[in-house]
């Protein structure tokens, strides 16, 4: 499959994402500059972590107006797969592709740590290879990762099974002290109504090799591969192609 990784001025995890796609997964990967107006045939687009446009005004506020984001929004509207990690999650929220917003950590401190998240739904292209309730150890590094949304939005996310990851303790409980940033409902990641756009604050692209702190993130990238392989055998609207037999 082909991965597209968007590079904004100020992105700094783009190389890691490209490296996962090419070196770890053995797939094709293409860097997409923020001024690009097409996604160069990417099956899945990653908005990486970093500090796009210096995080000026609000994290992700400038990036949402870059030309490449029009292409990303079109891709998302057409059911294409989009992932946002950290700053990428902030950009997806600012763009309205995901609900809610990410604000300053409740502690006011930048957090750099490894956290446990619980997979809350396997009904996304990103988590289909996991089990519900599975625990993953993933790194975080952010100052503005506190997920907020109004009550109605939060209730809808829960009702529609759109909370994808939640911060939990080692026993899998969403305890207050397992919440690194004050996110409402311990929410670490969500998806859109179409379930083809997923954003999360933790960094699965930093957890793909045992040598550098674990490979729990690999499960997620492999899920995307499986989803793309499955769809490759289908027509444009997702219906199975007529069998030749």
């Amino acid at each position, binding site marked *: 499959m082909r991965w597209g990784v968007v590079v904004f001025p100020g992105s700094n995890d783009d190389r890691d994402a490209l490296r996962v796609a090419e070196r770890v997964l053995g797939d094709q990967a293409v860097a997409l500059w923020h001024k690009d107006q097409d996604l160069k045939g990417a099956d899945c687009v990653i908005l990486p972590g970093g500090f796009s446009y210096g995080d000026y*005004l609000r994290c992700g506020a400038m990036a949402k107006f870059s030309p490449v984001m029009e292409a990303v929004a079109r891709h998302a509207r057409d059911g294409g797969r989009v992932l946002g990690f950290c700053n990428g999650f902030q950009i997806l929220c600012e763009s309205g592709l995901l609900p809610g*917003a990410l604000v300053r950590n409740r502690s006011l401190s930048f957090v750099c740590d490894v956290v446990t998240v619980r997979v809350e739904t396997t009904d996304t292209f990103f988590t289909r290879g996991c089990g519900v309730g599975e625990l993953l150890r993933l790194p975080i590094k952010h100052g503005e990762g506190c997920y907020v949304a109004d009550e109605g939005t939060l209730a809808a996310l829960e009702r529609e099974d759109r909370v994808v990851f939640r911060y939990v303790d080692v026993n899998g409980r969403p305890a207050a002290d397992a919440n690194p940033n004050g996110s409402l409902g311990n929410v670490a990641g969500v998806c859109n109504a179409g379930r083809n756009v997923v954003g999360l604050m933790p960094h699965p692209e930093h957890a793909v090799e045992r040598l550098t702190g674990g490979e729990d993130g690999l499960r997620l990238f492999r899920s995307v591969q499986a989803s793309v392989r499955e769809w490759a055998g289908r027509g444009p609207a997702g219906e199975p192609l007529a069998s030749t037999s």
Partner: protein
Amino acid sequence: MPGLLARVYVTPKRGILDPQGKAVQHSLHALGFTEVHDVKVGKYIELRLRDAGREAAGTRIREMCERLLANGVIEDFRVELGEDGH
């Protein structure tokens, strides 16, 4: 050239956690300013514009706020529009 000066105040929406405001409030209390019972920390933005009429400018500035300067999910905004004295 005479122009307009727009003062835009962006503040955290009611009910949205404002950890900065909370921290400032705690510090004020520590300094003895115990009468302060709520603090909100926001942003102040100045815009200088060509004068194309107040009403049109007001509409344009609201659009700027809604599309870029404030995030309606977490922030409210207020605009004061006046003559640019500079």
